[in-house]
């Protein structure tokens, strides 16, 4: 930091500070409200541990699904041009702005017992609604657009010049993908996955609507917090702090990756 003139109006700083306080103060209030004497007991209770474990398992699985499907989706959006592509992109990114509860209802009418695919799935002996699988589907539904969006951007920035060079050096399309395209956007994939994980971890509305709230089966940490708030506010606060800690960790990891990727 040297004294380079920034030309920034002072009133702008004041407004910015007010905005920052608005984000920071509630978190501080949360931390202040923690009952530290019971903290360990509260976060290690059976129901809390079950919820945390379930959250980590389902978020991990849905992140994996996001990478598995999101990478090809981002690739197809970034590298091909076809009619209706813009409409398709808008539809794919819709869950980003959709209220999660609406996503949950949509999933229910797709995979639920009377849903579009639920009926046929039931014939095959698969019942998704209100199972752990439903939690994973709900989280994937809301998190997938994050990965697609950030990776498509990374792919567009990387451009096609390296891919063209690789092709003229004799690499077929799959080799180009494996040895050039994907390694080049690896930071984009990782940060997209981190974002997806964070979104999946915080999922509430779609999960509650589509998967319900069964302890150890579908009751993830956010659901547990909401439930505890009614009966034991201290437990809700303690678990909230755990989620905050996980979120901070995720942000730190994402930031590190971003820094490491900076030229």
């Amino acid at each position, binding site marked *: 930091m040297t004294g380079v003139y920034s030309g920034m109006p002072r009133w702008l700083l004041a407004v910015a500070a007010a905005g920052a306080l608005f984000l920071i103060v509630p978190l501080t209030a949360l931390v202040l409200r923690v009952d530290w004497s019971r903290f360990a007991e509260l976060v290690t209770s059976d129901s809390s541990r079950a919820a945390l474990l379930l959250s980590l398992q389902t978020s991990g699985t849905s992140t994996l699904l996001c990478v598995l499907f999101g990478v090809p989706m981002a690739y197809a959006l970034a590298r091909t041009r076809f009619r209706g592509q813009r409409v398709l992109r808008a539809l794919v990114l819709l869950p980003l702005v959709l209220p999660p509860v609406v996503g949950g209802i949509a999933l229910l009418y797709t995979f639920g017992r009377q849903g579009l695919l639920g009926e046929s799935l039931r014939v095959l002996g698969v019942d998704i609604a209100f199972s752990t699988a439903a939690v994973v589907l709900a989280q994937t539904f809301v998190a997938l657009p994050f990965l697609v969006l950030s990776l498509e951007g990374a792919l567009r920035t990387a451009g096609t010049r390296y891919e063209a060079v690789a092709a*003229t050096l004799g*690499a077929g399309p799959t080799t180009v993908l494996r040895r050039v395209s994907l*390694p080049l956007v690896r930071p984009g994939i990782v940060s997209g996955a981190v974002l997806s994980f964070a979104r999946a971890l915080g999922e509430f509305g779609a999960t509650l609507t589509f998967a319900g709230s069964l302890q150890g089966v579908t009751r993830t940490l956010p659901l547990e917090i909401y439930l505890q708030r009614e009966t034991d506010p201290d437990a809700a606060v303690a678990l909230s702090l755990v989620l905050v800690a996980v979120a901070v960790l995720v942000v730190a990891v994402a930031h590190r990756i971003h820094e490491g990727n900076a030229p």
Partner: protein
Amino acid sequence: MSLDFTAHVPARDFNVRFSLATGETVALMGPNGAGKSTLLSVLAGLLRPDCGSATLDGKTLYDDGEWLAPHTRGIVLLAQDALLFPHLSVLENVAFGPRCAGVPRSAARKEAHRWLREVDAADLAHRRPVSLSGGQAQRVAVARALAAEPALLLLDEPLAALDISVAPMVRRMLRRVLEGRSAIIVTHDIVDALLLADRVVIVDGGRIVEDGPTRLVLERPRSSFAAGLAGVNLMTGTTTRDGLRTPGGVQLAALQDRDLPAGEEAAAVFSPRAVAVHRLRPTGSPRNVLAVTITDLEQHGGRTTVRADHLSAEITTASAAELDLLPGAEVYFSVKSAEVEIYLR
């Protein structure tokens, strides 16, 4: 015939046909937007022409309805930027082509080492591309291109992005490795055309306007673009200790940093603006003096170009008038030796 090529892209008003003999290097020149890069892209398979056809060593690259994917063509494109894969080491970059051809890892590395030695970059093998200078990166890119053993090598202004201090060394290296190779090199530099190519093809407005041996095209330009290129004076001959002697016996001195190897084929290049015109043989300061007969005078603004066969001088119109110059007049062109550049061919 190694390469036979016609391409027609109406959208870009591009209509070109030419062929290339095995082992021949062609310099492709022309103004910006003339379609030179389009031509390379079409050949490499990165752009699909609307119609036309191309065969390389009897293999059809494209024809009506037929289309060969870039990775099966055996044509490598070397761009202005080295475009080394940033996530691979220099060695792995060079081994990329052989690996794609199915060569086992250790054998591919051995080949990569060999090609790195070929371009004087053996010591860079374990470096990361980001740590290389422009000249080093371009050397490695050349090694990578050659390691893929292309039937045809395309070079798109390979020296344009380099510092003028390193370009001559890379050019010399290119000259060595292009020897006897089928290659097309797009360039704006008359020196590249002279040193690297056997033939010059000039594209303008999506058409070929000139096609012939490098020296002939540059010395006797028929197209305006070639004439503009020949905006420099070019004399060819053999080197002497301090310059060049033409087959006609004209001696041209050039100021050199080091002595030239005598008896080598070389070209001397100097700007028309460096040429002074005299009625009487000038004496005094060390200058090259050439006795010439004026063939043509061309006035543009305050300056006049005085042509004498394939040499030209650009002087102010005022002094042209003062000297009372007319076609047919016998005059002397003089140029300081410091203004003459000698290039070994």
